[in-house]
């Protein structure tokens, strides 16, 4: 068994009081009694072999509810990542979903000699500024839209919406022709080697173009570029800012105005954007910035937001489905016409759940925040 001393120190798991609050609020534990964050820590600290081959470490959604509730800020999600990394290093093979398509694409993307053709979707009316040292990080949206086309998923609509909003707000930026996947999913499932390959390839690309600022939309990309890259590769000297934190102040100062939208809307806080970066109000301000929007809250919102049940394209099972079902029913209960989210993964996972034969909340429309806001511009 590997020595995880550094990870144990960094995640502060020794501060665990054994109170079990983490397990009470955990969405996975709610449906799978065998998943127990408190016990996972105990087993590992006990030093016994009980934690090797512990299959339950793969069930965590990384939703951070445990971290939110823990009185001592034990970084359980990071601890899970450490355990998974250890397992992969000692030969465990990750049970990939979707046949491993995403992992295969991510691994190939990291190759230094790859020359992608990934911007063909860009509409002609979007203005790019060649000399800008700011780049908009598109993320895996082009790949998602191919793989999940049968779910009616169009994550690129959100990306295009984001670009239109930036244009309207007068913020200059360019795109990267050979941008790689940020690597967060590989990091999350213990494939550190895969993550580092992508990170290094991206960093090389950023440095080659003299990038000084990156605007993200996907919250996971945001976390990866802002937190994980410096953690793994040292200070990257690039400012990373999320679209919502860039645009919300401009709405307040009236430098950006959106069009009307006469709809009753409920907003789903993505775990990483909400609990991760405390960006609860900014997305809501973008929604209420559209005249006519009636915003209603679900039973679990803001820091209590219920996860969309996403796993990093691995180990997806009935627990994910049950959590998704619960979230969709919460949305339906608000009687909102549209469920809005600001994360492509949330969109994909919730739409996938709606396709289930026995989904009880398949009717509610799911839309992307930036896509919706950008569409309102035409109605001004």
């Amino acid at each position, binding site marked *: 068994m590997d020595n995880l001393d550094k990870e144990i120190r960094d995640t502060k798991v020794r501060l665990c009081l054994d109170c079990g609050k983490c397990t009470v609020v955990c969405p996975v534990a709610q449906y799978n009694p065998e998943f127990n964050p408190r016990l996972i820590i105990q087993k590992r600290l006990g030093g016994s072999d009980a934690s090797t081959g512990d299959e339950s470490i793969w069930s965590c959604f990384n939703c951070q509810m445990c971290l939110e509730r823990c009185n001592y800020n034990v970084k359980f999600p990071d601890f899970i990542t450490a355990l998974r990394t250890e397992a992969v290093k000692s030969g465990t093979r990750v049970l990939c979903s979707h046949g*491993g398509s995403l992992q295969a694409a991510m691994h190939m993307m990291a190759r230094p000699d790859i020359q*992608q053709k990934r911007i063909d979707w860009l509409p002609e009316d979007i203005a790019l500024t060649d000399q800008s040292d700011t780049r908009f990080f598109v993320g895996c949206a082009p790949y998602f839209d191919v793989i999940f086309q049968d779910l009616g998923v169009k994550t690129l609509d959100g990306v295009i919406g984001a670009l239109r909003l930036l244009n309207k707000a007068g913020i200059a930026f360019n795109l990267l022709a050979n941008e790689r996947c940020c690597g967060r999913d590989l990091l999350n499932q213990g494939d550190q080697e895969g993550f580092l390959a992508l990170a290094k390839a991206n960093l090389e690309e950023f440095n080659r173009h003299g990038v000084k600022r990156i605007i993200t939309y996907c919250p996971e990309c945001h976390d990866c570029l802002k937190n994980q890259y410096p953690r793994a590769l040292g200070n990257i000297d690039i400012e990373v800012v999320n679209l919502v934190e860039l645009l919300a102040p401009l709405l307040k100062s009236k430098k950006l105005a959106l069009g009307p939208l006469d709809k009753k809307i409920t907003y789903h806080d993505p775990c990483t954007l909400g609990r991760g970066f405390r960006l609860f109000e900014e997305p809501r301000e973008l929604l209420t910035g559209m005249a006519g929007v009636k915003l209603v809250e679900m039973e679990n919102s803001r820091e209590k937001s219920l996860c969309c049940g996403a796993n990093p394209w691995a180990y997806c099972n009935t627990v994910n489905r049950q959590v998704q079902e619960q979230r969709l029913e919460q949305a339906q209960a608000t009687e909102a016409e549209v469920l809005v989210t600001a994360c492509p993964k949330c969109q994909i996972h919730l739409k996938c759940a709606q396709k289930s034969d026995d989904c009880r909340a398949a009717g509610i429309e799911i839309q992307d925040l930036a896509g919706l806001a950008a569409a309102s511009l035409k109605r001004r």
Partner: protein
Amino acid sequence: MSNAATLVVFVCNWDGLSTIEAAAQKRLTFPASVKIIRVSCLSRVHTGLILKAFELDADRVTLLGCDSKNCHFGIEEELIDQNFAKAQGIMKLLGLKSERLTLVRLPHGDGAGFIKKVNQLVE
């Protein structure tokens, strides 16, 4: 070691395999760089498997299956076409040449056809 391209052939157990067996019976040969992988039905070959073959540095990948309407399991072509189209879509984004992936349908027992096709693909 010849310089022939590595070709991974996913072949269905029924019509697809019959072409390879027919070729073998006539003692026709094909390069050693051709790797045959037998599956129960081509609809089993999802996008992830095709991409994995490329990740493992296959030069080309072929799906070799039944003549349409002759599927042993009576499965519609949709699944195969969908998986194939998704794989092509991902390859395009990755900048991989689309010729590297092909879908081949041969009549039952067409050994010569198999050899001809395979030699074409590894050139």
